[in-house]
């Protein structure tokens, strides 16, 4: 993985020292809270309901065991012994003291991790496919370009006061696991007609109160032009994005107001001046960064299909876990292991300090020291020998980290909600817990098949509810929490936004409503059709009837 050189490390240390001075000025009253807010936000520090929250980037989801141990140390020393992995490949600490933040950031800088631009109206953490560099279905490793973008975006003098936040996601696989279509810029690596690898560039996707699927602004972009092209998109946005209304300030709004063709025209006009200039990415810099992502020294192994089949036939629980949580690796004899943070009744994405340490140990012992963080709030060990899967599974199971529910109904995405967040209208965590407790039968989960439930505690949509097969949105109705369901959302390469099912439900009725939807689906699905495909085939009516009764059809 990428390692800081002298420049990177000097930069983050200077950033910590700068923030230390800013905190001092804030505590001394030299800065007003209004002036301090953007400074702390651009270091990842939010003020929540009960305390400060610190959001730390895991750049493009790649983490070393050493960094994970530091996360555990922070949780233990400065927080309440746990952290929360988010849909943005970040970790959040919920109980932080302002005056301790510079020390925390210094600890993180020591292991090459930062909170820089994890918040604020700037380019946020660059996210990517969690299996980057390892997945068998991958065309190219996107991380070299993520790292270029990370450096390019850090304290960009022109783009640190954008109209609103700006999120970029990259996938190097045709199977989009990074949800690029719902980002301000989505980058899909693919080959052009000459067989050269480049980027399809999507722009204007996003969730929040006005969700949009991103539109293609450029079908194929040569990698050497990545920075200049992104810069032109950002420049047009910075100059033309709305500044009068925070709810209409994202790039998706102007892209959809002026139309993608007009936006493309403006970008191309600007880009004409810069495309062959100083931002052209030199091959040697690509090679320098790429060398950090070179595959580790794998042993020459054969696939263990037969040996595994033998163990699997004798151990049903292991078999289930392999089928669910283990993914094909591009190198023979190795496997990608997903570590579920979604045990029944647990808070999705939460993990204790002790378990962070344990995962770091397992990564060292079984996975060449590398861990990945997924936007679906799970962890991944990317380089596990197939011959050691059984042993690893036992150890994960002891830690309650082997729930075999990856991609199944109880693998729920959930924002922190009103338990922590100052923006929330409703508590999303208890809903996630209730649903996961209502669906614990592993045979049943498997029978239901691929299923995503995404829960947001407010319309800001941190829980990506619009793109869950079932989305759940918490709303406040005259002081009471209600939950609106949407069906048919998806964030993959065939992204779609969910349709509203009907009136909001009180918390207590949500698990039963999910049950009714699932039951209706099981009756009408054809063969092994996923819920999403059934929904796309039959539409919303059967599910409306299932939840609200037949009379709802007339209403």
């Amino acid at each position: 993985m990428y390692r800081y050189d002298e420049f990177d490390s000097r930069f983050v240390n200077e950033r910590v020292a700068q923030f230390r001075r800013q905190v001092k000025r804030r505590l001394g009253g030299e800065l007003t809270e209004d002036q301090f807010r953007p400074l702390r936000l651009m270091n990842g520090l939010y003020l929540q309901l009960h305390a400060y929250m610190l959001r730390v980037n895991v750049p493009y989801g790649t983490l070393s065991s050493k960094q994970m141990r530091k996360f555990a140390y922070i949780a233990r020393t400065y927080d309440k012994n746990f952290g929360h992995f988010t849909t943005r490949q970040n970790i959040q600490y919920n109980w932080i003291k302002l005056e301790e933040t510079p020390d925390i950031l210094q600890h993180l800088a020591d292991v090459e991790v930062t909170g820089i631009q994890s918040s604020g109206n700037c380019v946020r953490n660059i996210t990517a496919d969690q299996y980057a560099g390892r997945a068998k279905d991958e065309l190219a490793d996107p991380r070299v370009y993520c790292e270029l973008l990370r450096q390019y975006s850090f304290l960009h003098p022109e783009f640190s006061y954008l109209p609103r936040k700006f999120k970029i996601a990259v996938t190097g696989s045709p199977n989009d696991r990074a949800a690029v279509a719902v980002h301000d810029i989505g980058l899909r690596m693919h080959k052009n007609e000459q067989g050269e690898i480049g980027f399809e560039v999507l722009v204007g996707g996003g969730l929040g109160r006005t969700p949009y699927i991103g539109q293609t602004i450029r079908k194929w972009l040569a990698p050497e032009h990545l920075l200049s092209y992104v810069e032109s998109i950002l420049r047009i946005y910075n100059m033309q994005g709305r500044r009068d209304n925070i709810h209409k300030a994202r790039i998706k709004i102007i892209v959809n107001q002026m139309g993608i063709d007009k936006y493309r025209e403006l970008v191309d006009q600007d880009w004409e001046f810069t495309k062959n200039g100083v931002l052209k990415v030199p091959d040697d810099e690509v090679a320098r960064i790429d060398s950090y992502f070179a595959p580790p020294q794998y042993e020459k192994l054969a696939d263990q299909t037969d040996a595994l089949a033998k163990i699997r036939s004798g151990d049903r629980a292991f078999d289930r876990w392999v089928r669910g949580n283990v993914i094909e690796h591009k190198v023979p004899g190795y496997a990608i292991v997903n570590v579920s943070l979604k045990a029944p009744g647990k808070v999705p994405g939460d993990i204790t300090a002790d378990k962070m340490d344990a995962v770091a140990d397992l990564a060292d012992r079984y996975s060449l020291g590398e861990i990945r963080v997924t936007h679906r709030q799970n962890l991944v060990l990317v380089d596990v020998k197939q011959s050691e899967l059984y042993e690893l599974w036992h150890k994960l199971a002891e830690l309650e980290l082997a729930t075999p529910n990856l991609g199944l109904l109880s693998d729920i995405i959930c924002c922190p909600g009103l338990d922590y967040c100052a923006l929330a209208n409703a508590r999303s965590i208890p809903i996630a817990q209730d649903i996961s407790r209502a669906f614990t039968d592993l045979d049943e989960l498997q029978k239901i098949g691929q299923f995503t439930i995404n829960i947001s505690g407010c319309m800001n949509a941190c829980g990506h509810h619009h793109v869950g097969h079932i989305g759940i949105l918490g709303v406040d109705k005259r002081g009471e929490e209600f939950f609106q369901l949407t069906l048919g959302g998806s964030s993959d390469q065939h992204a779609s936004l969910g349709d509203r099912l009907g009136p909001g439900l009180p918390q207590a009725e949500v698990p039963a409503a999910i049950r009714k939807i699932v039951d209706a689906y099981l009756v009408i699905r054809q063969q092994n059709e996923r819920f999403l495909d059934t929904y796309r085939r039959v539409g919303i009516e059967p599910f409306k009837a299932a939840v609200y009764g037949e009379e709802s059809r007339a209403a």
Partner: protein
Amino acid sequence: MALVKNGELVTSSFVDASGAEAIPATGPVIVNLDQWKAHRDELLKRGTPLGIRLHSDQAPELIAGDVQHFAVVALEFPKFRDGRSYSYARLLRERYGFKGELRAVGEVLLEQLFFMLRTGFDAFEIVSADPLKDYRTALADFSVWYQPTADGRPTAMQLRRKH
């Protein structure tokens, strides 16, 4: 309000008439875009240095053909959160070839000087008890830059490639 230009405390020789009803008859003057459009010919004839002050919703494209007439372009930050003038500064420097004084006016906070300098500003209206000290402190925060922008400082990438 102090004016720091190229790292020195200076007194502006310009009268800022951009908010005034009438433009003074003589002397260096800063006008707004409407005044410039209405009185362009007279202003050019008077033979004194000219400046123009642009709101954050007035892109420099509007004066792209005229930049050679201005000794000063003042770009406004009506609120520090309004970051449009960072792009305007770069366009003026890098695209329209403006070589004169590029002055940051409005809500110019110390934390932003570094960004302003890097996008091509060389003069700053600062509210401070000790403007020069604050200016120097604010600019000493960083010694590493990742983006090639108008100020021409070598980026980390360029320095790496020299090695």
